[in-house]
C-alpha cells in the first residue's frame, strides 16, 4: 500500500470478467504519518481509506470490464459497515462483485476481510466515463502493470 500516493491496492490476486469479480490484496503499512493522528497512541486504519480500498478494487474491475477504454470514478457509497478495527501491518483481502453494468455507471458489492473474517462492506456506485485525456489512460496502464493486472483476463473473457 502506497498511502502517500493514494494507491491502496498492492496487487490484483484474481480477476474474472466471466464471474464479474475481482480480488485484490492490500497490506496496511506499519508506519505512516496518518497513524500519528488516527489515533495518537492507538493507530487504526481510517474507515474512509477502507472505502477507498474497496473503490479502487471496484475500479479495476470496471476498467477491466471496459477493456481500459473507460475510467471509473466513485460516485456513491451505500450501506458501509465497519465491523472491526484494522491496524498497521495487517493484510486485507478486498473483493468486489459487479452487481450491475449500467449505461455510464456501474454498481459493485465490495468487502474487505482479514484472515477470513469480515472487516467492512458497502455497495458502491461508480460513474463510467471516457478517459479525460490520453495521459491518464497511459498512467492507468502503468499502474495496472505495477499491481499485476492479469492481461489474460481480457483475452479469455
Amino acid at each position, binding site marked *: 500500500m502506497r498511502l502517500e500516493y493514494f494507491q491502496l491496492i498492492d496487487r490484483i490476486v484474481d480477476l474474472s470478467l466471466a464471474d464479474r469479480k475481482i480480488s485484490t490484496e492490500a497490506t496496511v503499512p506499519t508506519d505512516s504519518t496518518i497513524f500519528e493522528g488516527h489515533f495518537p497512541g492507538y493507530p487504526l486504519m481510517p474507515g474512509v481509506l477502507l472505502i477507498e480500498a474497496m473503490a479502487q478494487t471496484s475500479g479495476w474491475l470496471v476498467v477491466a470490464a471496459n477493456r481500459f477504454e473507460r475510467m471509473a470514478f466513485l460516485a456513491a457509497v451505500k450501506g458501509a459497515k465497519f465491523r472491526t478495527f484494522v491496524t498497521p501491518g495487517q493484510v486485507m483481502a478486498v473483493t468486489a462483485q459487479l452487481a450491475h453494468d449500467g*449505461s455510464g455507471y456501474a454498481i459493485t458489492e465490495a468487502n474487505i476481510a482479514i484472515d477470513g473474517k469480515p472487516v467492512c462492506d458497502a455497495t458502491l456506485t461508480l460513474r463510467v466515463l471516457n478517459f479525460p485525456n490520453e495521459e491518464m489512460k497511459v498512467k492507468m496502464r502503468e499502474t495496472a502493470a505495477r499491481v499485476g493486472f492479469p492481461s489474460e483476463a481480457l483475452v479469455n473473457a
Partner: protein
Amino acid sequence: MSSTFDTIANIIAETCDIPRDSITPESHAINDLGIDSLDFLDIAFAIDKAFGIKLPLEQWTQEVNDGKATTEQYFVLNNLAARIDELVAAKGA
C-alpha cells in the same frame, strides 16, 4: 398489474423520498421533481432491474447535448415510460 408509469413513479418516490401523489405522468424528472444526475443513477438502476433492460442514459444525454433531442423526450415521465416500453418490447423481439 401496474402500468409502466406507476412502476417508475413508485421507484422515484422511494428512491428520492418524493411524495408519490406529487408525481404525475406530466412531471419532468429534472425540472419538476428536482432529481439530479446522481439520484437519477439510482432510479436508472432500479428501472433496469425492474424491467430487465439497460436504459441508454449515455445515448440520451449525448442526443440532448447535440441538440438532437430535448430533455422532455426522455425525462417527462410519460415519455420515459414510453421509452421503457419500447426497450422492453425490443428485448422480447
